[in-house]
């Protein structure tokens, strides 16, 4: 029996532990790398397609490098109806953003700062909206909008999108206001502010970054919405409605360029609000 000294045993153990650690580390890093490329690679391929000419897109086999050919994007921009649709998407999203924040902020403030009868009922109403496929509500609204002259209007569409975005903006703003100590407001009242002045001088500056984030969130909800947009707009199509309604007729390069245009602002905006994403969902959670 070959006797190992204590030091040798110890050294062996340490080596074993280190080896295991290294293995786990490697496994961990490679799964991170895998997941990151799982998300990024398909987007990259869309970019490649959008930056290639129609011949390349329809050709085979494909090159995995972008040709930096602006033909497709040019064609897309000049394709009949695209520019209008892009503008419409933008307008609808801006409307939605303004209405959702305009209506949601006071309600969020009320939830954060007051105890009142019916508070729980109101909160339930807000949460209930999330338990239903909201885009479906575009169906009856389409009929109603015809009667009130809002059919095929971006304003009508943004009202439906606001119904989607409002619950979020109420919950997010209320959590923002909850995060601002009420004593700051009280200090302002004692020092001579009325409620409105205290809100503007103390609460608003502190809530502004979060409010921006929730506005961006409302914008993205509207920008990305397909079903209601497709049902409610005919001549004033948004970009999503345009792409869905012309799926069978539009050339592939229009689809791919359209897809890229669709996701670009969303990615950018998410980057702007990334800090708030989690606090938003952390709260929207309860």
């Amino acid at each position, binding site marked *: 029996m070959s006797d190992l000294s204590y030091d040798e045993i110890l050294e062996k153990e340490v080596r074993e532990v280190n080896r295991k650690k290294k293995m786990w580390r490697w496994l961990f890093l490679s799964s991170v790398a895998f997941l990151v490329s799982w998300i990024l690679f398909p987007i990259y*391929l869309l970019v490649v397609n959008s930056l290639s000419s129609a011949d390349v897109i329809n050709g085979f086999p494909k090159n*995995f490098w972008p040709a930096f050919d602006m033909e497709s994007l040019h064609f897309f921009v000049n394709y009949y109806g695209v520019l209008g649709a892009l503008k419409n998407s933008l307008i609808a999203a801006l409307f939605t953003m303004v209405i959702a924040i305009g209506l949601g902020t006071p309600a969020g403030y009320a939830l954060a700062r007051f105890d009142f009868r019916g508070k729980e009922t109101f909160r339930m109403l807000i949460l209930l909206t999330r338990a239903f496929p909201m885009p479906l509500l575009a169906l009856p609204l389409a009929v109603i909008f015809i009667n009130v002259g809002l059919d095929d209007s971006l304003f009508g569409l943004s009202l439906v999108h606001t119904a989607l975005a409002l619950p979020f903006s109420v919950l997010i703003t209320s959590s923002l206001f909850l995060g601002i100590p009420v004593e700051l407001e009280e200090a302002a009242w004692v020092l001579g502010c009325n409620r409105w002045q205290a809100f503007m001088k103390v609460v608003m500056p502190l809530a502004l970054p979060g409010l921006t984030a929730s506005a961006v969130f409302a914008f993205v909800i509207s920008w990305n919405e397909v079903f209601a947009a497709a049902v409610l707009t005919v001549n004033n199509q948004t970009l999503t409605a345009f792409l869905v309604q012309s799926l069978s007729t539009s050339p592939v390069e229009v689809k791919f360029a359209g897809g890229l245009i669709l996701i670009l602002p969303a990615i950018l905006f998410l980057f702007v609000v990334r800090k708030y994403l989690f606090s938003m969902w952390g709260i929207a959670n309860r």
Partner: protein
Amino acid sequence: MNKKYYPYVLIAPSVLFLLIFFVYPFIEVFVQAFTSSDGHVGLSNFENIFTDYNFLPSLKNTLLLALVVVPVQLCMAVGMSLMISKMKKGRDTVLYILTIPLGVSDLAAGIIWLAILDQNGFLNSFLFSIGVIDQPESWLNYQNPIIIFTAVVVAEIWRATAILLVILVSGIGLIPKEYYEAAEIFGANSWVRLWKVTLPLLRPSLQTALILRTLLAFEVFAVVMLLGGSNMPVLMGETFNWAFNYQDAGAASAYAVVILALSIVFTLFYLRVLRVPKGARI
């Protein structure tokens, strides 16, 4: 003005808005669904859609899709959120990248995967270059329903896991690390800690995540339209067809009622199965 009325004044616009654009259309969906084209109350719209040859396949596809996609996404999201909770350097960057699909609509996701799975797409190009195939295969045609289904599953997993991830990451953030330390001191290895500490304490987040994600799965529409076209009918797509292509609001509303019913059933199911006893929350 009396201070008592402040909150009511503040919530009034939202309440009014939700009454007009949520409660009222919600009731209206039912009214339209149960009103036949001649104006009588009845089930004729439902008879119409139930006898439509696309109804059963669309119901089957929608349910099957949810049944396959949601559990896979849940497991992935749990794994990803645990992974992220272990990260220090680069955590924010990785998190941002993994949540990018949050901003991608199902339409855009469909387009992305079309670029890959199309006959002239990147998958075929890749398979061709390594010699597996010698000419472009048309994967997404009606002869390959299983491949179409798989393609939709992949696209959905790619697109909609992020929402679960965000909810779970913020849920994990709420669990104080003392619980893990306590469990570790008392001899729990990381596997036991996952099952006995993390997952039970994460139950409220899991519940929200599952409800939200399942409802979104019932709303799946544009991805399927792009990848499957008419070869893979789903409920939301049929609703769109009846509303937009056949201009039949009654039948579309009947479809909407079916989707709403499914949503309610599953919401109640999750609420029941994953309910958290009062006082057992963090």
